[in-house]
């Protein structure tokens, strides 16, 4: 009930805000995520990332367009330190859980060797999905295309809301390369 009300409220708010204020709000509400993105990601990173993504989907209409009509269940695991989360996308929302429900099947299951691989894989900075695959740091069971979409969602999150690792960091990388 509380969750539904909260979502309703955020949905109303999302029609009043554009991305600039959402970005400020995100950084204020999720300081830990920004901190993780800035520094050495810990075992908390996965949960914080999915939490931030869920909040951004609730708060930002433009970000929500990315998942219009999209339904999928992602089971994401990190082996070192061992962390697991399930991300369920449905009707423009993201719900995060610790494990799959009874009898529930993940659309795609991704297992990372460590948090570093997870960060390299998901956040902009020169490495992408194939890169982590090449280095044998991730195992994917299921439809790889869903992972490509998830990669976009993460990168769009960091860039759209100017989180560390997003636009600013990427443009720094680009500038130094050129």
């Amino acid at each position, binding site marked *: 009930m509380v969750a539904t009300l909260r979502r309703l409220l955020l949905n109303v708010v999302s029609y009043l805000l554009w991305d600039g204020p959402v970005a400020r709000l995100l950084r204020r509400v999720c300081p830990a995520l920004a901190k993780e993105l800035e520094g050495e990601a810990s075992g908390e990173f996965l949960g914080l990332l999915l939490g931030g993504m869920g909040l951004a989907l609730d708060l930002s209409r433009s970000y929500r367009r990315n998942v219009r009509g999209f339904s999928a269940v992602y089971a994401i695991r990190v082996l070192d330190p061992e962390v697991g989360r399930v991300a369920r996308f449905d009707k423009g929302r993201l719900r995060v859980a610790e494990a799959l429900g009874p009898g529930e099947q993940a659309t795609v299951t991704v297992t990372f060797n460590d948090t570093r691989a997870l960060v390299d894989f998901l956040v902009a900075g020169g490495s992408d999905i194939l890169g982590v695959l090449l280095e*044998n740091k991730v195992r994917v069971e299921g439809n790889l295309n869903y992972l*490509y979409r998830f990669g976009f969602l993460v990168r769009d999150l960091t860039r759209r809301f100017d989180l560390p690792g997003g636009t600013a960091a990427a443009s720094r990388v680009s500038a130094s390369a050129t």
Partner: protein
Amino acid sequence: MSEVTLRDTALSEYADVPARVRPLRDAYFEAIPEVCVERPKYVTEYHVAHGLLSDTPISGLSKARAYRHVLEKRTPVVWPQKARLRDGSQMEIRGRSLFAGSTTSKFKGAIVYPELLGLSLWPELRSVSSRPQNPYYLDPKDRRVLNEEVFPHWMDYSVLEITRRREPTAPYDLLQQIVFFLASKPNCMSHTIPSFSRAVHEGLRAVIDDAQSRAEAATDGDRRDFYRSLAEAMEGVVAYSRRLAAEADRLAGGERDEQARQELRTLAEIHRAVPERAARTFREALTTVWMCWTAIHQENPNVGLSLGRLDQLLYGHYRRDIDEGRLDVAGALELLCCLWLKIGDHVPLIPETGERLFGGTGSNQAITIGGVDRDGNDSVNDLTYVMLRATELMMLRDPNLNARYMSCVNSPEYLRRLCQANLRTGATPALHNDRAVIRALTTKGDSLEQARDYGIVGCVEPGSNGRHYAHSAAVLINLVSALELALFNGEHRHTGLGNEIGPRTGDPASFASVEQFRDALEVQIRWLAGQAVQMNACLGRTHQSHYPTPILSSLFEGPMDKGNDLVHAGATINSSGATIIGFADVVDSLSAIERLVFRDRDVPFDTLRQALVGNFSLPEHARLGERLRDPRRTPKFGTEDPIADANAQWLAGVLDGFFSQQVGPRGGCYRVGYWTMTNHAGFGLLMPAMPNGRRKGENFASGMTPVSGAARSLPEALNSVARVPKRNLPSGLALNIKFTPVGSADDEAALDDFAAWVEGYFAPHTSDPAADAQDDSCGMEIQFNIIDRAELIDALHHPDKPEYAELLVRVSGYTAYFKDLTPEMKQEIIERAEYNLAGGAGRLDWRFPLSSEEE
């Protein structure tokens, strides 16, 4: 018979890029590619509207209608007005090409194929414009189209995903781990040469009429639909050309410049006539080829899709125009330079990390010139030389020019001219020995006439022109992985020792002889190759059910007569290709094991293996590594060492023996080739230390080229490679040789030396014709880099210097711009052994990392 009437085959009086082409060429080098979303948008639109996105097979007719929809909707670009620069700004284009139309709506574009691997670009949609290596500009509006209107529809229906869902036993895990093999069908089924003959000589209306009358006569529904698919697809091509005509007319109406107006009127007239009707002039014939070429790209990505023997196809039109005074050599050169630029108007779309494996590659669109005709006569003509000159002047990555040469039939002057072109360009054309290639093809069942009419596909693969669907890059085998599995009893260091991947072939430390080790290696090779074949078969079935190719089938010999699409074995000749990565490194490793471990018993196998696991880092292992790398102390391929040569021949025999027994998804057996593109650097990056002394992460040798530094002189290298039987190399090989530049490309002595090397390498080793028929030891292919090492090092450190923007180098099978290559690939090219033209002595005194003095 030879048709050479030119007084100066070097065409030295045409010293510059034609004035019309110069601004276009300049813009080409300044512009970065732009992602074009027209094709994916219209293809998706059609598939969604007609309910084609499902597990139900898609008929060729539905596909043809989808492509006709694309061809009827895509923007008819007559003369592109703008190009995109690296900083995102736009530049105006001032030149006016003699050809209208384009493969994309951009001046230099990249096409997205969401049915294949297009979705791999998804994570990069926000960063692809600014990525450091080989960026593609993506307009924010187009990003939204891909993200919201295109990609979501294909998530469950890309070729790879359909295959994964339908074929649970496919070795999907191995494919994902990348170090074992690559399969190209998730990305394309390209790598072939269409036939433009009918389109040029009869026009597409004749193809349409033929297909329609066969459809009416067909009693079988599938066959009727197949013929209707051909007609439908070709109507789309005709419609696109007519729309270009209309657009040219429209532009002419508003054009103030009289000359430009007239040129537009001429373009309109040409596009109203061709490709629908038979080409009447050389320019119309070229336009027909170009229109068909752009259409094929709407169907399948261009990965090694090649244009074939254009000097043969178009010579009649050229000769007639010249003889009747409608054309002169300057005009023909101008047309060809314009067309060469058009052919390069698109680049493959490669995700960021794909750059690590394939960085800098173009589409590898091979054009073949020279050689013999179907009757075995000299087929070199004036147009051969005009094409050669156009290539010299333009210095483009694509098209990739390949020249055939038949000793004693083609003239020695022609060979000298090919060598001169290499000296002038430093990198092109690649040279192919007709004698060896024709022998290799007839061994695999091609008729003599078919074999004589071969063209080069992609990098170096020979295939009978317009009738052989080779898909020569169907699977790429990392041979070093098979060796790794033999060394570690079925385990692989990259995927973790302790995990059984391949068969348990025994601990080599327990082997009593090298024969036992060879047996283990052969088992692993057969297992690994078998996995790749299985994966290719699974993917092939998906292409058959979901990806028929009516456009290409219309432009090919076979489908019309057989009544089958190309994906259903419609071609006259069918085969699948397996290309081998890491050949010389494996030969050298096997030879080192044979000599040091088993023959001399100097090094216990366990010691060798410990050194490999430790990457030769301990002092005693470092000494062993030095010994293993030293060609004076360890047998090396390319030194005429009997052990190494025997192992090379054994290995090529094992691979050919296995693959020639495997039937591909379209029927026809696999054909083995040894060309690596940039994969010898990409795979090298991933692979651990090897028994030939190669350390972790170092490049493998390219193609069938000996490991750099092994051959102290050129003859040794050439002889070792030539001894590998051609019957085992039906899909060709790439032998990369680097020559120290000479003072002038026209230096007579240098040309004599150069031609002598090629002639010697290509010549049979006997003068007795009867013995010659049995002899299999002449060289097959050779390609060159003729560039100063200091210049390459300078280009490595100063890639932004203007003179290096166009620096062309030969990779392994194709040419590339040095600046676009990965760091590993640049290193590999710099490290290649360099030989003097006079005498062939090697300069072998360097090795990466560069010394501080060099840096």
